[in-house]
């Protein structure tokens, strides 16, 4: 492949083909993690890490590592005490006094904060100073060993403790702990270089109670008792270079199951669940075989472990040589519905072992390759395991999802390119968050990102064939496995990192094909294609005139140019045509092969070679066209709206063998409520050979059609006779046969049909009495005694059916809902729900599916005014201690209640739960549900929208969720949904005077920007143009910093700094003229002002140090003020790091004083070494973990 095609992707790569260039001035080779004490009671962890690094530059004097939450007691480098500071700007993104409450401002500040500690930019929260004694050593680029003692106390993220409050020892109680998090979150539980691109070998040691098992990455070398025999130490070795982000841990009283098929695979589950584990994992070896076969590569690690834990963060989390699953995936042989879902999770986890764990990524913008490949091979497994129909159906589903999401939000970009950090290039200005870092991404966006990634991989496969595709994967894997066995010194480890460039190069080498246009379209660019198609048949020319229009102006769309496949089914057969979609050609003439000849009785050949008899009476006598499909292979990420006659859709449904086409025609037929449609759908429903999912969706379509045809409908309610024929006794048609779910297809149909039937409505828009009685009878006669499988899902769906049958209550004068005026039908429904819900307490069903359905049904009854609307029942079910599915269902009802009843109290209750609930998944889910079903939106007036709420949510995303990226992004999403990007409308106008100072400060810093700033002031808040301007003056600013010899990190800080100020300017009420206010007003230094400076120390100690140094000479009032904010924690460091400067010291004290007066919250700032001069000689006697918070360690756990 010619190198020219690669240019765009090279843009963010400094050294194109050699690949990886570390952002750090050192290289990590080996890390030891030793956790010697885990206290379940106190939820604390004590341990140390030891990193072996090789400096790559001579003057390395600071080492930045990632660490969050950890309390660091002591750092030694080559056994010499080293000074360190711990500084995490993400703890509090915007400092508190700000009355700024606009999301634009927050998102920028957040992105800047994340950048400031981003390991991929060489940053970190923990900055360690190399002791001067070692400088010579470093200059010779000799090895350094960094030993860090740390502890964790009640971690809020990263490590999750599950400690049930029952009697007994921790092991008896089933207490366990496991690592979790979103993307690279390992820094939450031990100091490391938390990047996917910094690989090293590992030695992991965990000392746990003798009754517990510690499962971690790599090979378990040995297990040794401690001297008192009460504890055991698990020693793990991971010799394959692995990123810290792929390190994980699970400790608990696990039951151990060695896979009977593969002895190097071990499964772990919580006590009592062993039988379920056996059944659930009995399938895993087949997945192994499949992947190893298609990749022609052995599983890269020497062992594999699956751990099933409670209160999982995500259902599946893949780490090097182990995966952590939710225990709720376990199931017995009697459960039908969960089985395929769990198997899919297992297969997903395993796919990520190859791509994601073993092969890691170079940078965040290469993430799509990993997610794409693992998703793609997982898709291949789906195809093999569940069949082509299931696979195509899944692809269609995923395609629909991504299309809907992109059209809604404006696009998902797989390979974001950030040219020099300029805001102008921000490829995601339509979003309310930055896509520059995984940690700023909305969870939904990330899910969709993964979805798009694997779909694009499939597009590449379409282009270069599967064979080449697998060859590419094999090549990547063999390169990586060669590299993994090499010593560090060979510098081969970066071969284990995949990059977009390397991947594309590999593709072009293997296939010799140019896929650059495809990459440009789908990877380097966001958006999907929206086609509108219609056609006319020209009888004279025997030509099909196809018109294909595109919408590429709406958000989330893009223009498609290139080939497009169209399949035309004619009387003589099915023909594929490839059209070239070009700039201005809308019309395409497609010659037809057959003349219309309906008289000849001949079988009609289909695409798959099958020949069928068709009743052609419905079709247009003049046209030979049966149906037309646009892009049948889904080789474009698109949405197609195609117009063709109803009979064509009906033919397509009946005779097209592709499930996607069937699905599409079912969707289209909703618009044609005719007896012919009814017949076609009924036929499909009855057809045993037809894919069950198609039949299921036919049910719902039939219900919709029946409702549209309600006045002309004849015969019994739709599907009733069909159901009777299929599932009821021959002799007594009103009684359903005893359950026999041996045929899964009919099981799914049997479950679905009543649910769809319940959607039927009569002329009064009520559910027909006949249908309700029918469903009630199904429940009554349900008999599962002779069934091999559990019927819990079936019963749950029957309750769903009951809920579907509920229609709004006829209310007279808003009477209060009481038992007396209860509709008799509703009374019957309620009777069933009560009984089911109560029986669940005595005989609980698997995953409490029935309780979940009952809760939903109750909410439906409440919403429709049959039962008084009340949230207390749901609140009790939402409590911690219920099964998570129940909780989510109950919370969903509370969220809905909050919206419908506009209840402030419930909203507060939910918000409180977001902050306090012990289960991270539940907290995430509440935010997610609130976002999906918000109590109000930005365009809506609501009594709930008030200042207190704004403050509360702001606090939540600003500082309350610092321990969980996913949660914080969820809070941002909610904030966006409620208030939008700009300042929430319910806030009072800000005071004006404060802004002046800011501007003046700006003027001092860089006078040239003032006019621009003024201009930007005029712009509307959400206008992306602001960013452009921001970028405009950022460069001079940072260059001026460069003159002051600030290192490269300053870029981020200045960015944060400027974006902060810019957002200040963006305030709508800020008058432009105020900028000339005299600088003397600065003396009052209003909170906002100092706030502006706050970001600086938070992100960039060095720079502020420079400033403080300069400030003494320059006598700039403003600089002084900056100094005042900054110097306090840092001058100490400065003093230590260079020589002592007494004048600085004075300043320092002075400002410290000042700072206190202003009540600034530098919570996380380091005060340690304040007087270290005096104490330097003193050994670190106070660093014992037992002594509580060390003076020198930051108290981050507050």
């Amino acid at each position, binding site marked *: 492949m010619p190198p020219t095609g690669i240019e765009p992707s090279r843009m963010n790569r400094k050294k194109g083909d050699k690949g990886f260039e570390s952002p750090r001035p050192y290289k990590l080779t080996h890390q030891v993690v030793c956790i010697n004490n885990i206290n379940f009671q106190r939820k604390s962890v004590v341990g140390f890490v030891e990193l072996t690094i090789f400096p790559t530059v001579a003057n390395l004097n600071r080492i930045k590592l990632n660490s969050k939450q950890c309390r660091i007691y002591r750092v030694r480098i080559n056994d010499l005490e080293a000074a360190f500071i711990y500084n995490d700007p993400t703890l509090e993104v915007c400092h508190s006094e700000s009355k700024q409450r606009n999301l634009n401002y927050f998102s920028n500040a957040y992105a800047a904060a994340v950048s400031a500690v981003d390991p991929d930019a060489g940053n970190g929260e923990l900055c360690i100073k190399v002791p001067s004694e070692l400088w010579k050593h470093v200059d010779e680029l000799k090895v350094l060993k960094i030993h860090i003692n740390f502890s964790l106390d009640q971690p809020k993220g990263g490590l999750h403790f599950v400690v049930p409050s029952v009697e007994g020892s921790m092991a008896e109680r089933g207490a366990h702990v496991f690592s979790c998090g979103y993307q690279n979150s390992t820094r939450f539980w031990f100091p490391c270089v938390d990047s996917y691109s910094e690989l090293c070998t590992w030695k992991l040691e965990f000392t746990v109670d003798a009754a517990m098992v510690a499962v971690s990455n790599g090979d378990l070398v040995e297990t040794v008792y401690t001297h008192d025999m009460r504890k055991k130490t698990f020693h793990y070795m991971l010799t394959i270079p692995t990123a810290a982000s792929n390190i994980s841990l699970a400790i608990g*009283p696990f039951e151990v199951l060695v896979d009977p098929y593969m002895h190097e695979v071990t499964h772990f589950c919580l006590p009592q669940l062993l039988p379920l584990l056996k059944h659930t994992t009995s399938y895993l070896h087949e997945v192994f075989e499949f992947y190893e076969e298609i990749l022609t590569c052995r599983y890269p690690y020497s062992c594999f472990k699956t751990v099933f834990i409670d209160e999982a963060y995500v259902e599946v989390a893949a780490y090097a040589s182990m995966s952590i699953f939710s225990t709720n995936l376990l199931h017995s*042989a009697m459960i039908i519905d969960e089985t395929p879902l769990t198997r899919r999770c297992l297969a997903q986890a395993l796919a990520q072992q190859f791509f994601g764990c073993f092969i890691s990524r170079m940078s965040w913008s290469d993430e799509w390759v990993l997610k794409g490949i693992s998703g793609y091979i997982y898709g291949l497994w789906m195809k093999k395991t569940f069949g082509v129909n299931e696979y195509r159906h899944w692809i269609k589903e995923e395609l629909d999802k991504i299309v809907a999401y992109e059209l809604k939000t404006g696009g998902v970009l797989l390979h974001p390119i950030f040219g020099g950090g300029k805001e102008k290039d921000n490829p995601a200005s339509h979003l309310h968050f930055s896509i520059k870092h995984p940690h700023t991404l909305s969870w939904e966006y990330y899910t969709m990102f993964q979805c798009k990634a694997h779909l694009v991989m499939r597009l590449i496969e379409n282009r270069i064939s599967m064979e080449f595709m697998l060859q590419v994967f094999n090549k990547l894997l063999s390169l990586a496995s060669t590299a993994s066995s090499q010593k560090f010194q060979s510098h081969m480890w970066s071969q284990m990192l995949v990059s977009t460039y390397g991947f594309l190069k590999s593709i072009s080498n293997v296939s010799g094909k140019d896929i650059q246009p495809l990459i440009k379209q789908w990877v380097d660019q966001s958006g999907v294609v929206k086609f509108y198609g219609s056609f006319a048949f020209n009888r004279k020319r025997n030509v099909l005139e196809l018109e294909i229009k595109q919408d590429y102006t709406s958000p989330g769309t893009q223009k498609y140019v290139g080939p497009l496949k169209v399949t035309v089914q004619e009387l003589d057969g099915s023909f594929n045509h490839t059209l070239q979609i070009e700039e201005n050609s809308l019309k395409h003439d497609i010659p037809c092969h057959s003349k219309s000849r309906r008289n000849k009785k001949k079988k009609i050949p289909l695409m798959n070679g099958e020949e069928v008899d068709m009743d052609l009476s419905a079709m247009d006598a003049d046209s030979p066209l049966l149906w037309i499909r646009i892009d049948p292979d889904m080789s474009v990420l698109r949405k197609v709206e195609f117009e063709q006659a109803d009979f064509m859709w009906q033919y397509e449904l009946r005779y097209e063998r592709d499930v996607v086409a069937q699905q599409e025609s079912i969707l289209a037929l909703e618009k044609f409520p005719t007896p012919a449609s009814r017949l076609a759908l009924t036929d499909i429903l009855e057809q045993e050979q037809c894919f069950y999912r198609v039949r299921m969706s036919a049910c719902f379509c039939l219900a919709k059609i029946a409702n549209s045809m309600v006045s002309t409908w004849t015969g019994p309610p739709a599907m009733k006779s069909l159901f009777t024929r299929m599932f009821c006794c021959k002799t007594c048609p009103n009684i359903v046969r005893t359950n026999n779910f041996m045929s899964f297809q009919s099981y799914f149909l049997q479950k679905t049909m009543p649910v769809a039937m319940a959607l039927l409505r009569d002329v009064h828009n009520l559910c027909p009495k006949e249908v309700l009685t029918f469903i009630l009878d199904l429940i009554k006669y349900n008999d599962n005694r002779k069934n091999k499988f559990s019927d819990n899902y079936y019963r749950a769906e029957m309750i769903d059916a009951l809920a579907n049958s509920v229609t709004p209550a006829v209310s007279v004068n808003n009477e209060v809902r009481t038992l007396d005026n209860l509709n008799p039908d509703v009374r019957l429904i309620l009777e069933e729900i009560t009984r089911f819900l109560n029986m669940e307490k005595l005989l609980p069903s698997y995953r409490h599916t029935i309780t979940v359905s009952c809760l939903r049904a109750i909410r439906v009854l409440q919403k429709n005014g049959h039962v008084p609307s009340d949230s207390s029942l749901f609140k009790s079910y939402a409590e911690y201690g219920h099964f998570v*599915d129940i909780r989510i269902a109950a919370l969903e009802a509370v969220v809905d209640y909050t919206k419908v009843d506009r209840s402030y109290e419930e909203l507060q209750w939910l918000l409180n739960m977001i902050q306090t609930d012990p289960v991270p998944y539940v907290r995430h889910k509440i935010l997610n549900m609130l976002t999906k079903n918000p109590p109000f939106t930005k365009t809506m007036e609501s009594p709930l929208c008030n200042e207190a709420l704004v403050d509360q949510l702001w606090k939540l995303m600003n500082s309350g969720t610092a321990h969980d990226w996913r949660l914080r992004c969820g809070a941002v999403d909610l904030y966006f949904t409620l208030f939008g990007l700009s300042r929430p409308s319910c806030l009072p106008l800000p005071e004006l005077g404060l802004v002046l100072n800011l501007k003046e400060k700006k003027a001092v810093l860089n006078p040239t920007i003032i006019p621009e700033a003024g201009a930007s002031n005029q712009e509307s808040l959400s206008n992306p143009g602001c960013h452009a301007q921001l970028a405009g003056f950022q460069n001079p600013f940072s260059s001026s910093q460069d003159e002051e010899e600030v290192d490269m990190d300053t870029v981020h800080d200045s960015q944060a700094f400027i974006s902060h100020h810019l957002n200040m300017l963006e305030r709508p009420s800020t008058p432009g003229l105020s900028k000339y206010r005299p600088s003397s007003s600065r003396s009052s230094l209003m909170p906002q002002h100092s706030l502006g400076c706050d970001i600086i120390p938070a992100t960039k100690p060095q720079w502020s140090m420079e400033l403080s140094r300069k400030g003494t000479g320059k006598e700039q009032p403003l600089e002084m003020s900056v100094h005042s904010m900054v110097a306090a924690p840092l001058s100490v460091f400065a003093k230590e790091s260079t020589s002592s400067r007494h004048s600085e010291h004075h300043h320092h004290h002075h400002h410290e004083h000042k700072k206190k007066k202003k009540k600034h919250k530098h919570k996380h700032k380091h005060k340690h070494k304040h007087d270290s001069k005096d104490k330097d000689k003193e050994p670190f006697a106070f660093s014992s973990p037992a002594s509580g918070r060390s003076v020198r360690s930051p108290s981050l756990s507050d």
Partner: protein
Amino acid sequence: MADTAAGPGGSGTRSGSKQSTNPADNYHLARRRTLQVVVSSLLTEAGFESAEKASVETLTEMLQSYISEIGRSAKSYCEHTARTQPTLSDIVVTLVEMGFNVDTLPAYAKRSQRMVITAPPVTNQPVTPKALTAGQNRPHPPHIPSHFPEFPDPHTYIKTPTYREPVSDYQVLREKAASQRRDVERALTRFMAKTGETQSLFKDDVSTFPLIAARPFTIPYLTALLPSELEIQQMEETDSSEQDEQTDTENLALHISTEDSGAEKENASVLQQNSLSGSRNGEESVIDNPYLRPVKKPKIRRKKSLS
């Protein structure tokens, strides 16, 4: 025995007992009066001129008891030898058994001063009223000897079955099964609701649709995931026995480690052996998995153990 028979005697007026209308009572009264006469004459014979009523009564009682005992005992002896009629020898044996010297009896009977007492008046043996008979008693079947008791009255064994044809109709059966189950479930849940805390959907009415209050579990996933005991049984039947054996050996190591959490040092060697044998079992099934290997004993390091 002479001294028994020749008790102190004395005549005295017999107090008349209450007149009874009952024939059976009359019969007994007559006999008793005779006994009293006997006692009185014996007293007279022994030289008493008068006797208190109470002493006469007591002596009468004693005599009656004595005679009754002779009769009872004689009956026993006679039945012992499979007879129904007592013979003289039975009486003799009885008397001997009671410590009476039989040889003195003829002399005593022939003593001179004995008084002759008239026989008691003949009163009719009381008639036990006939039990109600219903129908004809069944004659013995030929294999039952005729001396066996007769059959009881027919009403004690004759039964009149009043059953209907068994329901074999599928519809009715299903209907019945369904409604039975529903009734049981409803009754059970209502009972549970009545006896425990409830929640209600209607504020004004807590009894019509009582919902058993939601109670959080300490370990919620167990109830949610584990099948009921019945279901487990079914599953175990399908499980192959091989698998079970395998897990037994697999779990051995784990169990050991669980048990010894509180174990003292002196147990360590035993444990070591146990876990070694566990691993040997593992080797037999050729499973080499690091999690099945025995836990090693710590290396002895003086410094550490001291601290």
